[in-house]
């Protein structure tokens, strides 16, 4: 009786249901969940569910048996059990009001470390970097939580510390590449040791804590992420020869020493805040190590495609230029702009930043400084304006970074209707819809000069006229001829009203050769498609359906844009006529 119905071999033995796994590990569901989160174990979808489910079709989650066996050797499982016992003892001691034993038990509270788990999950540092996205987003979210009962205060503080360290690293290594202001928050993308890391930071508001979210799950994830994040930070600081935990440069430390610092906050707190101000550079292990410029060594390799080398070099140059985008510029942030984000972003590209002294710790110069080049304001007007600086809206900074060049400031002056903020993460393939603003930016990048707006308008009008003309021209010659013939007939009729049967000369049907060819080809294709095999036809239909859908969507967007442009143009004209 070794039939397949016994489910004693094959895929039935490779999988295990969640409940069975839990029983095997002798853990409660919550502990099992925590273990799975910490160890990164996830369910698997077997190919033949019914076989694995031993003939039943009930919906179940399956884990790989190997995974569960792997979990059995985990020392944390033992710690979970110890903790369970500890809680039981503590409850008993409380119940008996034995305060000494309560104290003693608390002193010996079992705790576990996740170092080995991190090392196991990410055997190499690059692996850890690759998986840093979620860790970053989570820590940034937790660092913005209020110190309410949603999670431990220590966790929030740790998250804040780690995120500040991370931002400082990004500033010092100048590895930020893209920023995007979305309605959800601010997306940042950095290139750290060759890995692109993207994270999302919520806007600075108090959170409306939802009730249908299990914070225990989030807290477990954060526990794991903070451990990972700390180790990553340590390593990253090491690579830059920076002191970890980060310390301010002695020079800047002196600079930042405020007059009334003692009143401000406790020393440890103010230090973290000074770090989070991001306005000063960090201390290095070796003070002499100024950044050396890494030159690409030229290796004479046989059969090298020189073009590739050149392209790489050019790319490197572009990147260097991008890193120094805001160098030699001095910024001042007004108090209504998001200070942390802007300070972080600007410092990443080499700018000097300051803000009002009463706004935040760590300001380095005043509003009155004459050397300020850009003043970032997010209100319709400013009372006192200095002549020798630009007053721009914050979007200018972000757009310039994404565009990898300093955009003309005119579009971003105070009270000006801002141009749309585009996502730098979208890479259009041919056939996709590209918004006209993006085309304009691309033209700017290529070095084409932007045309002044008024001229543009005029041009547009001219263009329209031209278009009309063209359209007229385009009117088919045939039609013209027809019209002519009609006219002659009408004339004749007018001349002698008596209708007479007449033979009009027949027209040659001109054959459009190109069109004929195209049609022929299309028909050939149609006929060939008819002969496709069923399987391939299905696949082909699916691909073509997807293609058509993208085209349809692109067309829809284009049509919407056109309608919008026309509507706005009409409004403009109306205004003009009114004036």
């Amino acid at each position, binding site marked *: 009786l070794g039939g397949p119905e016994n489910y004693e071999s094959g895929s039935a033995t490779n999988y295990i249901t969640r409940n069975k796994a839990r029983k095997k590990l002798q853990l409660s569901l919550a502990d099992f969940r925590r273990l799975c*989160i910490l160890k990164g174990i*996830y*369910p698997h*979808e077997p190919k033949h569910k019914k076989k694995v489910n031993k003939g039943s079709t009930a919906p179940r989650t399956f884990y790989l048996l190997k995974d569960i066996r792997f979990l059995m050797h985990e020392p944390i499982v033992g710690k979970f059990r110890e903790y369970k016992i500890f809680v039981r003892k503590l409850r008993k001691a409380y119940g008996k009001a034995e305060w000494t034993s309560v104290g*003693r038990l608390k*002193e*010996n509270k079992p705790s576990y470390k996740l170092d080995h788990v991190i*090392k196991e999950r990410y*055997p*190499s*540092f690059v692996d*850890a970097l690759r*998986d840093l996205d*979620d860790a970053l987003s989570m820590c940034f*979210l937790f660092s913005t939580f209020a110190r309410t009962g949603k999670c431990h205060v220590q966790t929030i503080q740790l998250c804040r510390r780690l995120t500040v360290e991370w931002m400082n690293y990004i500033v010092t290594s100048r590895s930020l590449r893209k920023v*995007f*202001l*979305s*309605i*959800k*928050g601010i997306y940042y993308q950095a290139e750290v040791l060759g890995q692109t890391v*993207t994270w999302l930071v919520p*806007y600075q*508001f*108090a*959170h*409306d804590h*939802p009730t*249908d*979210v*299990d914070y225990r*799950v989030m807290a477990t*994830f954060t526990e794991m992420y903070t451990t990972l994040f700390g180790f990553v930070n*340590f390593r990253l600081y*090491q690579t830059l020869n920076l002191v970890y935990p980060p310390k301010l440069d002695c020079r800047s430390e002196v600079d930042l020493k405020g007059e009334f610092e003692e009143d401000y906050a406790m020393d440890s707190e103010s230090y973290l805040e000074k770090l989070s101000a991001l306005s000063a550079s960090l201390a290095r292990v070796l003070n002499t190590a100024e950044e050396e410029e890494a030159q690409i060594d030229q290796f004479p390799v046989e059969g090298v495609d020189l073009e590739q080398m050149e392209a790489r070099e050019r790319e490197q140059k572009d990147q260097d230029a991008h890193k120094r985008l805001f160098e030699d510029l001095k910024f001042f942030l007004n108090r209504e*702009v998001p200070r942390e984000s802007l300070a972080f972003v600007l410092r990443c590209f080499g700018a000097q930043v300051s803000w009002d002294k009463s706004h935040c710790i760590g300001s380095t110069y005043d509003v009155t400084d004459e050397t300020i080049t850009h003043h970032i304001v997010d209100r319709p007007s400013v009372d006192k304006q200095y002549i020798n600086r630009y007053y721009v*809206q*914050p*979007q200018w900074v972000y757009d310039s970074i994404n565009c990898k060049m300093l955009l003309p400031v005119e579009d971003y002056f105070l009270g000006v*209707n*801002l141009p*749309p*903020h*585009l*996502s730098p*993460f979208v890479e259009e393939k041919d056939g996709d819809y590209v*918004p*006209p603003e993006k085309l304009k930016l691309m033209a700017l990048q290529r070095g084409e000069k932007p045309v002044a707006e008024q001229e543009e308008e005029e041009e547009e009008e001219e263009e329209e006229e031209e278009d009309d003309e063209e359209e007229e021209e385009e009117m088919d010659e045939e039609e013209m001829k027809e019209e002519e013939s009609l006219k002659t007939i009408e004339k004749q009729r007018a001349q002698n009203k008596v209708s007479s049967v007449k033979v009009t000369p027949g027209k040659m049907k001109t054959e459009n050769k190109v069109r004929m060819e195209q049609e022929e080809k299309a*028909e*050939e294709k149609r*006929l*060939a498609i*008819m*002969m*496709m095999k*069923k399987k*391939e036809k299905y696949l*082909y239909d699916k691909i073509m359906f997807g293609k058509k859908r993208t085209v349809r969507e692109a067309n829809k*967007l284009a049509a919407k844009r056109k309608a*919008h442009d026309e509507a706005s143009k009409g409004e403009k004209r109306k205004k003009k006529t009114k004036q």
Partner: protein
Amino acid sequence: MMVLWRVVRLPRNGGGVAGRWFFFFFFLPHPPPPSRRLRSPSQHAPAQRSRPAGLNPCAGLNKSSGGGEAASACERWQPDALAQMGWQGEMTSDCDIRNTVGNIPMEWYQDYPHVGYDLDGKKIFKPIRNKDELDEFLDKMDNPDYWRTVRDKMTGADVRLSDEQVDLVHRLQRGQFGDINFKEYEPYIDFFSSETMIHPVTNRPQDKRSFIPSLIEKQKVGKLVHAIKMGWIKPRKPRDTTPQYYDLWAQEDPNAILGRHKMHVPAPKMRLPGHEESYNPPPEYLLSEEEKLAWEQQDPEDRKLSFLPQRFSCLRAVPAFSRFIHERFERCLDLYLCPRQRKMRVNVNPEDLIPKMPKPKDLQPFPTTQSLVYRGHTSLVRSISVSPTGQWLVSGSDDGTVRFWEIGTGRCMKTVDVGGAVKSVAWNPNPSICLVAVAFNESVVLLNPALGDRLVVSATDQLVSSYEEPEEAREQPVQWAAPAGKEHDAGHRLHLAHPKAVRQVTWHSKGDYLACVTPDGGSHQQVLIHQVSKRRTQNPFRRSKGLVQCVSFHPTRPFFFVATQRHVRVYNLIKQELSKKLQANCKWISSMAVHPGGDNVICGSYDCRLTWFDLDLATKPYKVLRHHKKALRGVAYHKHYPLFASGSDDGSVIVCHGMVYNDLLQNPLIVPVKVLKGHAITHDLGVLDVTFHPSQPWVFSSGADGTVRLFT
């Protein structure tokens, strides 16, 4: 009768702190309470006892009223207050009219002349009150002490407050202590301070137990020692000295695989945001009103965007995203709850999927354009047939007529009204015979259209009329009759009356045999083969094998094809046996055609399929083509050219190149070459029959729109 707890404090000389309390038990009659008559004594007795002493300033008033002579019952509860008042209470029994009723609501005595009892148990009568309002007013005006006169509730007497009492009231009103002499801000003397004093606070000698070791402590220590010994209490753990963070990847093993196993699937990253997520997106990405409505009505799982794109004029105006924590949480759930699976994405160029076919141009000739339309029928044309010479076309329609057309001109040469919807027409393939078989209702008529060569026409007539009755008449399933007179003039030569409705007629290539199909499920007489020259009818099958759809003769060899719903059976007519059974892989065969070579058969079916059988290859179809969108009604092979055509309800005729090679190893080549359209779809019916011209690469089609069309 009620039990009353009376508590009386007898003042001692000196008015010391410690007093004595005496308890007297009295039994005195009380008037019943107005509302609660059955009130038990114990209910108000404890209230008396628990009354706090010395806190009721009113009590003090009562006490000292009348310089201590007129003490009320109240004073009994306020010993301290009395003491503080400095009341030197000589209790004179004669003037003591203290009420003994206790702390009861005095309303109970409202309707009685007395207000209670004195110490001797005698009634205290209410003082006579005969003052009316006016007297009261006058008293108020005249009496200088009116303001300090208070009515004693317990006795009902008016009491004038003394100066001290008024003072006391004022002090209490100001929130001061009742006792004038009490100093609240006196410096505090700290007796039990931290400083050791020379003298003990008390003179008590030290206890013995302070010199000998404590037994209890010994017990406790013993317990702890035992617990440590047994391992129940663990000593404090040493502090972990390793730093929180260190270089974890100091010894990195580049070859280390993940601790788990090789099947690890890394979690996919979050999707990066597009333009529509911007706080200030281009206007085309904002949703219009209808789109917004549609978005709101969709289920959250079905939405393409999880948020509504919005535009804010400046960064300052952007609010917090309300679903931020939700989204993060969902990501967490995805990470640890979602089953992961590696999915292979096919990355093919769709052009590569299209099979490489020979160009239709190279496969010419084939019909490409519609060149003639034969109009005349008023109803759908079910069947058409071309004369073997290629000059004439016959069509049978549901309007009950058979029309003969000249192919080249499109002229209708002749119309024969047969008086019934014509199901099938077939021109005799023998060029030396001019006969057309027409099937309608239950009969088949052989017509001589008298078109073309007169010699042939007359020869045909002669052939039909030369029949001689056999000597012994055999019983036949079909009645043969030779019409005369009018019908003969109209062209009718022979009538074959069948027992059931005839659906199809088809000739053998020699032109002598004629097969008819009378479809009927249970009957064994579904196929009949007639021999015209001998006017004989055979029923080749003894048993029915299903509903026969159509039949066909093999062009050269004595084989007979019978198509039932799902199968095509090939019978050997000489051996009288089933030689092959082809499985059509379709639901319902509608039509069938045999290749002139005889080794290939095509079948059209109502489920849009055209199946090509290679009889040498297998009984399964060599190819199934699903070109048509709707049911196929007719299929046909060309006699000479490698072409075949199929007509369908979608109104199109598809002409395919179907090359059959003499080499047995080479499979037939099938290439669709042209889709011909022209027929209008009426009543969901398009093309009903197709047939090729015998010599030219032309195809005829008849349609439900009452036309016959020629494509060349």
